[in-house]
């Protein structure tokens, strides 16, 4: 059975490890052939920020993983227009191609999915 699974990411990277472990959960979902969408809202957007250099904090830089999602057929990546604007982020600042959604489209997205994962 295939379920439409929405993974909601609200937290910035590195300050906590939720972002990294969410990636693991996404990849396993893909391996199980589920219909996956990723939504980045609030500080979750910062997970996608380009140019992350973690050498001096000595934590593994996992941002390349977002580019690898495509190889696993995880292509539905959505970000909040409002959250981008609040943080002065543009699509070109992000490490993958995303679809920018209004609040109203995000509400619909949440409605359309069978299961919502939160980390």
């Amino acid at each position, binding site marked *: 059975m295939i379920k439409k699974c929405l993974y909601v990411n*609200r937290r910035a990277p590195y300050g906590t490890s939720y972002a990294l472990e969410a990636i693991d959960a996404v990849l396993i979902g893909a391996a199980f052939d589920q219909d996956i969408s990723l939504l980045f809202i609030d500080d979750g957007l910062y997970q996608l920020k380009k140019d992350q250099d973690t050498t001096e904090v000595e934590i593994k830089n996992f941002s390349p993983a977002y580019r690898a999602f495509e190889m696993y057929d995880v292509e539905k990546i959505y970000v909040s227009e409002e959250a981008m604007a609040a943080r002065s982020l543009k699509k070109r600042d992000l490490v993958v191609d995303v679809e920018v959604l209004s*609040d109203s489209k995000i*509400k619909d997205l*949440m*409605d359309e999915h069978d299961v*919502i994962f*939160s*980390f």
Partner: protein
Amino acid sequence: MSILHTVNKSPFEKNNLESCLRYAKPGSAVLLIEDGIYAALVGTTFEKEVAAAMEELNFYCLGPDMKARGFSAGDKIEGIKMVDYAGFVDLTVEYDKVQAWL
């Protein structure tokens, strides 16, 4: 489809409730649990916002968490329904899916 949204952090501490209210559709429910119950109280700076949201959303608070923090039914905003854990379970059955605002 309507969603049961759970919020477990105080609105004074985190923006989980704020985000939840931004995205919750009319007819869906918000259940305040753990420290989230502070949003259910009268007399806070969030009371107006919550009362306004209640016009479109069904609000609940978890009684055991209210009690644990020294509050009772009389302290909550009128119209918010208090439930116990059994009621929490019932809400997850009544609504189509659960979204935890962590």
